[in-house]
């Protein structure tokens, strides 16, 4: 079988698997977010935490709760990283430096998982599983929680309540993330992913060399790392490391895991708003973007433009033999379109336009299908902007799912659209103007510029993958990066919350023949166009000086 056919088949198999899980997983998520019944263990935990599980929160209380658990999350994780040498299974690793610990804590709490450290020679096992992995669970759940408020905003009428954060958080962890991760971790171990808390032991190689094998709770973290679109690996090489991703099967499974919640949430959305068609429209836009980007990236990498790739006879620098180009491009596209940021190949060494596609995916704002929850709310915001323009063009005050897009709603949507580009562009501009920041580049010329743009694009959009040649472990990068990730995560969340509150207060306008149909192909096409054009216009000049300047020459 040729490389191309195998490539299409494995992508096709992925689409099939995602299509099969769309309904059951989406429906299950809807059930989790709407069921009035609590599990007994949950009731016990609510008492333990001291929250009223029956209270319905206003948007502002809900978002304040999100911020509260994030603040304490950063503080606790920061502390763990700083004093990890005093914990069990520390492997003799010293506590993390302050600015790196700040960066890492912000990174994991914001679901970014940008890593300015190399796992296997920085962290002990405990800091990994009791510190970092916990945030993999929480941040993934928080994303879905915020998406749930927005859906409820559409569903509820003349209400100022958007749900109970503590209930959503606990349920998502206990009913979804934990059991699924558990099963998948076992599958991963059975497929060759390591899971051992034994001290790294040294082997003597065939020719008498020595290798020290670091293992850790890898399979258990790998499962939630992909499922929760986190992406922070145990190892520096992330999912290209054979201990995290030993073969093409685990690779395929990991791609599936990082896509599955994002692609199923539109079903949850459709179900909760009472129209599956609305869910299909949203998932169509996501799927078209994903499929198009995958095809383009695979094609670019297979063509292997670029000097070294030409000379070598293919773009295999930074790719693993067991994956080859199609599985690498598939992973790269999926991870950059989902805010996961796990990598099975080094994006920095991709062909200029192939790497540029990965960057463009990130700059799209992580909406196709995006991070758990964050992808859905990002796409819904874009849908609101599209509805606004399209709605005007059919001669009515624009409305989406019966809720009018008035100045208040537009304000929050506009702020959301504005927040991430402002963070990305501002920090990129500052970094390119600061010699100390530029000195972190691993490459020169346009490729160096791409490394910087990619870095802030990735952090601002909470992706976490990197053009990893960039040396991020400097004071400048640790501090600005931490800030960029925090702003890029929580500003949008606040605006989404406010939008949800504003929508929930409205009455529902019944649909008529004069209402813009938001489930038809025409709207899907327009939403696709708006997404591409808004992002394209925002970043085109910067992209021109980076990947385009390098790739078109």
């Amino acid at each position, binding site marked *: 079988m040729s490389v191309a056919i195998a490539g299409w088949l494995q992508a096709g198999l992925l689409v099939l698997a995602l299509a099969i899980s769309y309904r059951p997983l989406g429906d299950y998520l809807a059930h989790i977010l709407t069921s009035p019944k609590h599990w007994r263990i949950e009731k016990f935990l609510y008492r333990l935490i001291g929250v009223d599980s029956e209270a319905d929160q206003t948007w502002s209380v809900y978002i304040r709760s999100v911020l509260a658990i994030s603040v304490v999350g950063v503080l606790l994780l920061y502390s763990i990283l700083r004093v990890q040498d005093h914990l069990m299974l520390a492997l003799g690793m010293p506590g993390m430096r302050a600015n790196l610990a700040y960066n890492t804590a912000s990174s994991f709490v914001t679901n970014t998982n940008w890593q300015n450290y*190399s796992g296997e020679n920085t962290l002990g096992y405990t800091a990994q599983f009791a510190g970092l992995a916990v945030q993999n669970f929480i941040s993934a759940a928080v994303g879905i929680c915020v998406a749930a408020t927005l859906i409820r905003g559409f569903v509820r009428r003349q209400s100022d309540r958007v749900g109970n954060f503590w209930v959503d958080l606990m349920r998502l962890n206990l009913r979804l993330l934990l059991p699924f991760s558990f099963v998948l971790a076992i599958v991963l171990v059975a497929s060759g*992913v390591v899971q051992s808390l034994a001290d790294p032991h040294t082997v003597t190689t065939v020719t008498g060399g020595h290798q020290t094998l670091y293992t850790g709770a890898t399979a258990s973290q790998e499962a939630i790392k992909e499922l929760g679109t986190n992406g922070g690996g145990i190892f520096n*090489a992330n999912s290209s490391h054979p201990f995290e991703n030993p073969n093409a099967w685990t690779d395929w499974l990991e791609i599936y895991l990082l896509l599955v919640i994002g692609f199923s949430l539109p079903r949850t959305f459709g179900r909760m708003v009472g129209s599956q068609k609305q869910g299909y429209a949203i998932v169509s836009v996501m799927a078209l973007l994903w499929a198009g980007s995958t095809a383009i990236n695979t094609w670019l990498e297979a063509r292997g433009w670029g000097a070294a790739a030409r000379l070598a006879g293919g773009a295999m*620098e930074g790719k693993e033999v067991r994956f080859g180009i199609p599985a690498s491009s598939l992973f790269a596209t999926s991870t950059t379109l989902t805010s996961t940021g796990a990598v099975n190949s080094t994006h920095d060494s991709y062909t200029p336009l192939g790497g540029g596609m990965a960057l463009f995916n990130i700059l799209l704002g992580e909406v196709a299908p995006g991070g758990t929850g964050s992808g859905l709310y990002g796409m819904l915001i874009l849908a609101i902007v599209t509805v606004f323009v399209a709605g005007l063009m059919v001669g009515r005050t624009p409305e989406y799912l019966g809720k009018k897009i008035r100045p208040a709603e537009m304000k929050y949507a506009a702020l959301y659209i504005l927040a991430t580009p402002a963070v990305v562009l501002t920090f990129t501009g500052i970094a390119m103007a600061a010699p100390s920041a530029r000195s972190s580049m691993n490459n020169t010329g346009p490729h160096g510029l791409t490394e910087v743009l990619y870095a802030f694009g990735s952090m601002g959009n909470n992706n976490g993958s990197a053009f990893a040649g960039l040396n991020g472990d400097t004071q400048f990068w640790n501090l600005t990066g931490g800030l960029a990730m925090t702003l890029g995560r929580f500003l949008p969340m606040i605006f989404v919350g406010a939008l949800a509150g504003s929508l929930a207060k409205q009455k529902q306008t019944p649909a008529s023949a004069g209402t813009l149909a938001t489930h038809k192909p025409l709207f899907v096409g327009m939403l696709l166009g708006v997404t591409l054009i808004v992002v394209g216009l925002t970043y085109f000049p910067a992209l021109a000086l980076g990947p385009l300047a390098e790739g078109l020459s």
Partner: protein
Amino acid sequence: MNRLPAPILRHLAALRALLVLTVICGIAYPLLVTGIAQAAFKDKADGSLIKDAKGQSVGSALLCQEFVDAKGNPLPQYFQPRPSNAILAGSTNDHGCDPAQSGGSNLGTNSDKLKQQVADRQKTMAAFDSVPGHSVTPGQVAVDAVTASASGLDPDISPLNAAQQEHRIAATRGITAAQVEALVKANTGGRDLGLLGESGVNVLQLNLALDAQYPYTGKYR
């Protein structure tokens, strides 16, 4: 009632929730998975280690290892893995495939440094793999033999890369190329499920099979 202000109560609740989740997701979950993994899949969970005849681990089937002499020169009687950037920075006796230093070059394809590396590797490998009666030109060297992997720990080489090294192995071990080829074939893994990923040859397993079947009699250390 002497209640604390709402923001403080909220943060206390958040802290309790965080601690509860740390216990459940951060401690119970990984320990449970570790327990099951160790009980049911110990070999895999420990890193798919390969043991020699004496029962000593010689490495992981999942990780590459260098087949070099003490000076770091590649040994001609062994199949050579892909170039590796998993090297302790600044070290002189770390030649790659160091599991504590996983990572790639992260050089862009237009980087002069990478171009130079590729050209150098092509020249080196062409010379290394050329034996009397079978010459390899720099342009013929397999792509994965001149490019470094993402992890620096890639255990595999492409079948093409293996084929290119067969003549050198045969010559140094005094066997026929066909014998080597048969062994390579036996150690070539196809695509998972027939369509996932790409086929590759596990270098460590292949070299161990070579040593077992056609022991090298020359000196290498």
